[in-house]
Every structure is written in C-alpha cells, then in structure tokens.
C-alpha cells in the first residue's frame, strides 16, 4: 500500500502539499532569500534535465535514462545540507543533488553517454564540492559500505568532512545497507545515510520491500538516530538532513528517510504498467515543486513570471548541455576500451590494444560500429 507523510505522527514537514507552511519553522531556517530561490532553481533544472534526457533516449541519442519525477525535493534538499568539503555518493537518478552542488549538466549527461566520469581536480584537496563523490554506482546498495570506508579514511587523515550517501528503498534490502550502517555505528563514522523511499523498486512496491513502518526506525538497530521526513518538502528535507550532518560531524552517524514517490517510470526501459493510477495522482497533488512555488510566491521571493522565466531558462540550458555532451561523446575512440583499466597496467593491456588497432586498421572502424 502506498504511504503518505500525513499518516505518520513523526514525519517532519514545513511546507504542506497545498503550499501552506509553518512560518516559525521557516524563520528558524539558516537559509537566506537567495538560497531559498536556489533550491527552486535546482529542482526546476533537475526536472528539465530529466525531460530532455528522456526525449533524447526516445530519439535514440541516449542508450538508457533514469527518471526522477517527484523526487526533486529529496535530492535537492539533502544535497543542500552539505558543506563544500563534504562528500556525496549518489544512486543514479539524483540529478537534482548534483545540480545543487554545482555540477555542470554536461558532466552529468556524459556519464550516460560514455559510462565513465571525469574529474578536473588533480587531487582531493583541489576538488570542487560536486567533485567530492565516488563514480556512479550501478550495483544497487554497494555505495553504502563504500561511503563508510571513504569517511573512515578521511577521518583517519584528520579531515573534518561528512559523507552523505543515498540509497533507495530497494537498495535498503541488500546486505550492503546493513554492513555500511553497522560499520559506521561501530566505528563512529561521519556519515549520513539517506533512504530515498520512493516506494517502488521497478515494479516491487514498498510492502514487498519491508514489513516495517519506516526505514527511519532502523537507526536504533545501529545505535544512532533515524529521522522520517516528508521527502516532497524541500525545506523539511533540508532541515532534517542538516541536523543529521551536524550530528555526523560530531562523530555520530545518522539516518534520514525521505518519504516520497517516484511518479515517473524506473527508467527508459520500464513499461511502468504495474501500479494504480490513483496513487500516482495522489502524489501528483503532493508535488514538491508546486507546493514550493506556492510557498515562494507567498513569501514574495518569486512570482509567476519568475517561475516561467526560470523554467524556460532551465529547458534551454538542458537542451544546450545535451547538445554539448553529445558532441563531446562523439569523439570516443577504440583506444578508450583499454584506457585506465589499471593504474599500473600489465603488458597484456597494450598487447590487446595493439591487436584491436590492427583489426581496425585492416578492416576500418566501420566494420565494427553498430
């Protein structure tokens, strides 16, 4: 059965689905007007990027694409709670999280075109905030103990940094989830674990994933606090993640569950024919962007003409970034097959590279492209 934040007494919320809000809680936030507008911009940009990616996949330009509709507040709100030197390891639909940390759209898209990622910084110390991440995870849930290890290592080197790792309700069923939270609890690691409970793992609903009422309750099993938050409320998500980040910085790991709903399909390969339309409609009424627009307008931070202009700019930016990314990715050469498989490559890598080059030379690249 689909879940809703209002069914829980302890589900944190600041902005309700209709845009009404707890004014006192808003005053208490450490966000200025620009920062409040920035959260909106990131969510709009994420949605525009998702739409562009899906269009390009349908046109055959992208091989595969993950959807994030409805999850924008969970992704943006959690990322916004991090400091510039903190780390963020994501699952692969968290576009808004990367956008919030300043990652260029081209860089996000290139992962989908080339399967690898690149960093500009030569060293960890020189990394920009959005570069403080491990490469994308594909094996669901494996990022959880890896983030524990990463932050253990940073702590051993006396860096005052926190790591945030996102995992879905599906990934939370894996042993990796348990291993990561257990290690963090025992070793007192500065990690914030975020379960993006979007209630569907492809076609598997939440009640087939867990018999527990919340994921937040799991915290107690690892010796630290778990918090449940309305994942479609960007401000509550920000506030609760920020609290968790502060706890983590003082040496106590933290767990946050953002209760949300994936309104789009799992991916571009998903027929999405397995769930009641009524659920999707119910969650459409709880859209994270709609309610935040009402909030922003009420606070006088942005008005309807601003919303239109921001959305139009985000769409243009997504279109332009996709064109740029496609152009960059077009230059992939057969040599890249062998690049960076090892840091200190054994001789067979070069031998096989030469073998492939010989084939390409004899038959032409066209004989291999398909």
């Amino acid at each position: 059965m689909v879940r809703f934040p209002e069914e829980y007494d302890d589900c944190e919320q600041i902005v309700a689905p209709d845009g009404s809000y707890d004014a006192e809680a808003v005053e208490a936030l450490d966000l200025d007007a620009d920062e409040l507008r920035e959260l909106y911009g990131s969510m709009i940009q994420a949605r525009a990027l998702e739409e562009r990616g899906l269009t390009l996949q349908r046109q055959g330009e992208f091989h595969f694409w993950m959807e994030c509709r409805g999850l924008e507040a969970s992704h943006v709100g959690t990322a916004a709670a991090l400091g510039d030197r903190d780390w963020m390891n994501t699952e692969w639909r968290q576009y808004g999280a990367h956008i919030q940390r300043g990652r260029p759209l081209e860089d996000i898209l290139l992962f989908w075109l080339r399967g690898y990622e690149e960093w500009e910084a030569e060293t960890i110390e020189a990394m920009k905030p959005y570069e403080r991440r491990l490469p994308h995870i594909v094996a669901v849930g494996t990022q959880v103990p890896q983030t524990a290890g990463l932050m253990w290592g940073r702590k051993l080197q006396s860096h005052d940094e926190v790591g945030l790792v996102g995992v879905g309700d599906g990934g939370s069923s894996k042993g990796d989830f348990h291993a990561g939270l257990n290690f963090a609890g025992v070793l007192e690691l500065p990690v914030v674990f975020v379960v993006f409970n979007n209630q569907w793992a492809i076609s598997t609903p939440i009640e087939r994933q867990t018999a527990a009422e919340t994921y937040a309750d799991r915290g107690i099993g690892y010796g630290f606090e778990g918090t449940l938050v309305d994942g479609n409320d960007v401000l509550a998500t920000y506030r609760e993640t920020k609290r968790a980040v502060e706890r983590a910085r003082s040496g106590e790991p933290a767990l946050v569950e953002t209760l949300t709903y994936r309104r789009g399909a799992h991916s571009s390969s998903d027929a999405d024919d397995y769930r009641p339309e009524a659920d999707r409609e119910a969650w459409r009424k709880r859209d994270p962007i709609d309610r935040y627009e009402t909030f922003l307008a009420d606070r006088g931070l942005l008005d309807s003409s601003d919303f239109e202009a921001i959305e139009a700019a985000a769409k243009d930016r997504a279109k332009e970034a996709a064109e740029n990314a496609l152009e960059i990715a077009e230059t992939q050469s057969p040599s890249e097959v062998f690049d960076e498989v090892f840091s200190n490559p054994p001789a067979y890598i070069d031998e096989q590279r030469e073998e492939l080059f010989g084939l390409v030379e004899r038959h032409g690249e066209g004989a291999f492209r398909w």
Partner: protein
Amino acid sequence: MAAEKLTLVEAVAEAIHDEMAEDESVVLLGEDVGRSGGVFRATEGVYEAFGPERVIDTPLSETGIAGAAIGLSASGIKPIAEIQFMGFTYAALEQLFTRAARMNARSRGQFPCQMVLRAPFGGGVRAPDLHGESMEAIFVHHPGFKVVVPSTPHDAKGLLTAAIRDPDPVIFLEPKKIYRAFREDVPEGSYETPLGEAAIRRDGTDVSLFTWGAMTRPTLEAAETVAEEGIDCEVVDLRTLSPMDKQTLVESFKKTGRAVVVHEAPKTGGLAGEITALLQEEALYYQEAPIERVTGWDVVYPLYELEDFQLPNATRVEEAIRDVIEV
C-alpha cells in the same frame, strides 16, 4: 642485509609490519586481525605496534570489509583487508567485482583502487567446508585485479610488499597448508619481489612443470623422484597469476616441448586450461606431447580425510610426467 629464518606466515606478518612502519597511510582491517593477531597469526604483533587506529577488528561482514576497503582507498588510505578464508570472499565478490575492479576505469583514473585483499586459500589443513577453497581463477578471469600467490617465505614478504605498493587492487592468496611448512632466510627490512614474474625453482630440459602456491612442494618432490629415472624437469612457480609471466612459461616450454600444469583448484575452467591455450598459441611447433593437467577434481571441495584424494600429490605429478615423456 641481515636475514632471519621465517615461516611463510611469519613473513606475511613481517611484510605488513614493515610497510605500516614505512608508510603511515597503510592500515589493516579484517575479522580478528587486531588483538588476536589473526586466526592463523598472520598479523601477529601488528596491533601492538600500530594500535587500534590503524589495525581494526571489524564487524563480521565480508561485504563490509571489502566495501570499506574500497572507500578507504578512495580516501587516500592504503588498506590491507583480510578475509579469513578464501571461501568467505564469496560474500565480498559483489563489492570486488562491481567496484574495486572498475573504480579506476569508471573514474578515469581519479580514484585508483589501491588495496590488497589477503585471504588464506587452498586445502590441506582438515578444516570445515569453505575453508579449503582455491578459486583463484575467478579473480584472474575478472579484469581489473592482480592476483598473487607466494610459495616461499622470502617471496611472501617481497610479493606482499610489492602488492601493498601497487596502485591497483591485488588479491593476495596465501597457501595456508604451507604457512608453517618450512623456514628459510628472509632478509630484514623492506624489499619487493616484482609482481608478474615467475620463478624457476628447478632448471631442467625434459618437461616443464607449471604450478604455484602449496602445489609447488609436491611438484618439486615429483621432479626429484623422476630425476632418479633420468627425467630432468623444470619447475616454474608462477607466483603472480595475473598478470601471468607468459614469457617465462613460453620459453620454458620451447626448451622442453612437454608440460604438466599442477593446481589444486578444480580442472574445468581452471588456469591449467588457460596455460595450455597460451602454450598452444605461442609455441605449438615446439610441442612434443599432449599437455597434462594435474588438478583437483570437478567437485565441491571434499572434506577432512577425503582431502587426501582431492589435492594433487607427488604421485599424481610423477605419473603425469611419465605420461608426457612416454609419448
């Protein structure tokens, strides 16, 4: 350089100790590696020397150990992770295959996965199920790893030192049957035995015997026995299984034209097949006889007294040598 007589397991402990003393970014993690010094004493004295910050008794989770080691490596630390028995690496395989092996490639070199995963492997100690596995081929087959198996105390120290310093993930498999089988001179202080180089343990001209780990000893024993019959065997200890020292293998085979490959892992899909294919590709016209494989049977590892029939011994190796000579 001064030397001391060490067993293989003592040499492992010394390599870890020396590297941790030399490089403070090296840490050790695993189950029971700290206060107890490891179930085989392979990390004895390390905790006392470097303390609980750098020598960590982890919760019982191979997934967690491997996952944490990958993360530690990305953070700039050089982890040595112990999995208590090779059979328990199965729980860590997803972390190792989906991440450790491809971290460098997927990050375009930004995050090399400099880590060593040590595991005692192989049979011969009458241990329970999953304590006698030798599944080295799965790590050789999966791209992205280096796979190392020492067979002497001297090499154990030198190879482990090289493995810790190598920027790629190294699977370091320790033949537990010969952890304490013999002592030999091991130089004090650090030295590297280069990865990717086989060692010729016995020069010979009639048959090449290719092997590694604990099987090196029965193979050498067989070579001595048949020497009395006038058959002169060359024994090549591969030491590194990936990357394999193809040149040494092929040169030896070109000299003898006959080969027996000995490993305790099961036959089908095992590395003896890979080595046979290599010799066919590179030196077919030197071949005088079919290449023999002396391996474990294709069975789930037989336990306790049945181990006697699973592990290749000198008798089986001798028979194979005579077979390839008689052709």
